[in-house]
């Protein structure tokens, strides 16, 4: 079974983001970058499928040299091959998907995995776009999946419940938390990953359809108001919630 997992190198979720001097990107100084958390589920699912069915897992990431750190982590977790689509130009979801789809076309895998979204720009769009560009079925936000021959049965998260779906292989799956419990890279795996090469490929140049014009932080929260400490404050609280906050 040939598997491709698309992974991203994103700011740590603990980062306190600052806007950079250009006003439309984040200031990267002092920011710790990590493997996108949802991509860990995608990698783990690939590793499990390979362990069960044999085959090969290829991890691919689009970005600059710094993405090698994340590709190295994927190798340490156990993927067989890592490819960097080396390009640092700013891209929207469409042009990211385009570069990934072009690469995947050349590999013709049985399944393509991504995290359901990257925690940097949070578009949750790339996976679906890749599927569309490749003309493949897709299952997004998957929390459970089984492969039986050429058929996939999967459960995806929907508002208030799960939806059970079926589709044929090849397909694109985007992974949600709960799909599995990702393994740690083993220390032995980390040492083995050190000697594995990371292949560099020049991707299709970016042709973004959406440009970021400006990036702004949400307005700072104003201080809370204490109306009172006992039951006598309730009428005033209700009045304020109704008239000022307009929430009831």
């Amino acid at each position, binding site marked *: 079974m040939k598997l491709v997992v698309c992974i991203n190198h994103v700011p*740590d979720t*603990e980062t306190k983001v600052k806007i950079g001097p250009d006003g439309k990107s984040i200031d990267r100084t002092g920011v710790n970058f990590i493997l996108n958390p949802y991509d860990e589920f995608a990698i783990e699912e690939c590793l499990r499928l390979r362990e069960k069915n044999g085959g090969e897992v290829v991890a691919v990431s689009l970005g600059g040299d710094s993405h090698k750190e994340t590709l*190295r982590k994927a190798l*340490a977790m156990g993927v067989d091959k890592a490819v960097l689509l080396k390009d640092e130009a700013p891209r929207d979801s469409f042009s990211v998907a385009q570069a990934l789809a072009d690469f995947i076309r050349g590999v013709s895998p049985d399944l393509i995995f991504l995290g359901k979204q990257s925690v940097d720009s949070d578009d949750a769009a790339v996976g679906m776009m890749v599927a569309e560009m490749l003309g493949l079925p897709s299952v997004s936000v998957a929390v459970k999946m089984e492969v039986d021959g050429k058929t996939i049965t999967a459960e995806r998260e929907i508002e208030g419940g799960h939806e059970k779906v079926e589709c044929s292989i090849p397909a694109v799956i985007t992974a949600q938390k709960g799909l599995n419990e990702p393994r740690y*890279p083993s220390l*032995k795996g980390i040492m083995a990953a050190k000697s594995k090469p990371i292949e560099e490929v020049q991707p299709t140049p970016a042709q973004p359809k959406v440009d970021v014009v400006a990036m702004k932080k949400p307005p700072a929260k104003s201080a809370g108001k204490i109306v009172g400490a006992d039951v006598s404050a309730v009428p005033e609280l209700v009045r304020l919630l109704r008239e000022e906050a307009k929430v009831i």
Partner: protein
Amino acid sequence: MPAFQGVDYFNADELLSEEERLVRNTVREFVEDSVLPVIEKHNRAGTFPRDIVQKMAELGVFGATLPTTYGCAGLNNVSYGLMMQELERGDSSIRSFASVQSALVMFPIYTFGSEEQKDKWLPLLASGKAIGSFGLTEPDYGSNPGGMITRAVRKDGGFVLNGAKMWITNGTIADVSVVWAKLDGVVHGFLVEKGTKGFSAPEMKGKHSLRASVTSELVFEDCWIPEENIFPNGKGLKAPLMCLSQARYGIAWGALGAAMGCYDVALNYAKSRIQFDKPIASFQLVQEKLVYMLTEITKGQLLCIQLGRLKDQHKVKFTHISMAKRNNVYHALEIARIARDILGANGILDEYPIMRHMANLESVKTYEGTHDIHTLIIGEDITGIAAYA
């Protein structure tokens, strides 16, 4: 409280390679997921979290610097140190377990053992299927191990051991113990397997420190062991002292982890605890305490990275290791005490890790060469005069 992001005031991360950082981050994540959620419960109950052994083995913690042919990870010494740092941010008991298994059991078997001993024990110890302990210290011989009373005499194609060891981490739960005893007046290492007749390992109770670790006595009463269980190499006191150097190296890093844990908690507490209508972090006396903590952690960190580099280049002297162990444990203990001070009364609760680290570090300051003995080791090195002889 925000998740622990490490302490790195001097961009020391730039001194680390990609895989060294990945080792550290992986063990950090492991500690967050598998040690911190359970450690207070075990510390309270005085029990060792036994299920962590298998998890640490799967990660590749045991004997991590030894070659992959024995199922080990083949890490360099800096990665090994970073691993110890993260484990001890969890708890000194967990780091102690890993230290003993790796530096005091697997290292001597690898260094002094026969091919048969290596082939038999190293894969079992690496995979956590076997647990090891190390018996050198005796009730009456601590800082002066050369005076040990435990004796071996030849008998029936093997050896008979008599004597007792004390303060032995993992003793009661060990499948194999590396025991040092005098044979014809010379110190030798012996492998004593669990269940050997005449060997018992009662657990020592009532500790106020390292409560999540098993500490034992090892008692040998006409305990016969076969010829193949003696180390063919490594005769004399130098052999166990080489093991201690390995372990102390890990302790120097481990102490940093405990200190980082305390600093991180104290800093966050100081920023959120309001007294006199402002966070206590706005007071000069509190700031001074935090600055002391961070400065000492930073110094210790740089000391350890260079120590690890020297060790990787085979240029390290045992006195270098003594200095790092002595310095880092001393300051880690001070940092724990000051952190308790910053947390006020809250500092004594096990809702926070401070008192646990502090109590643990009291042991760490004493074991593997006391603070004072390390002073004298370095003192002898620079003056040429031994002050303890």
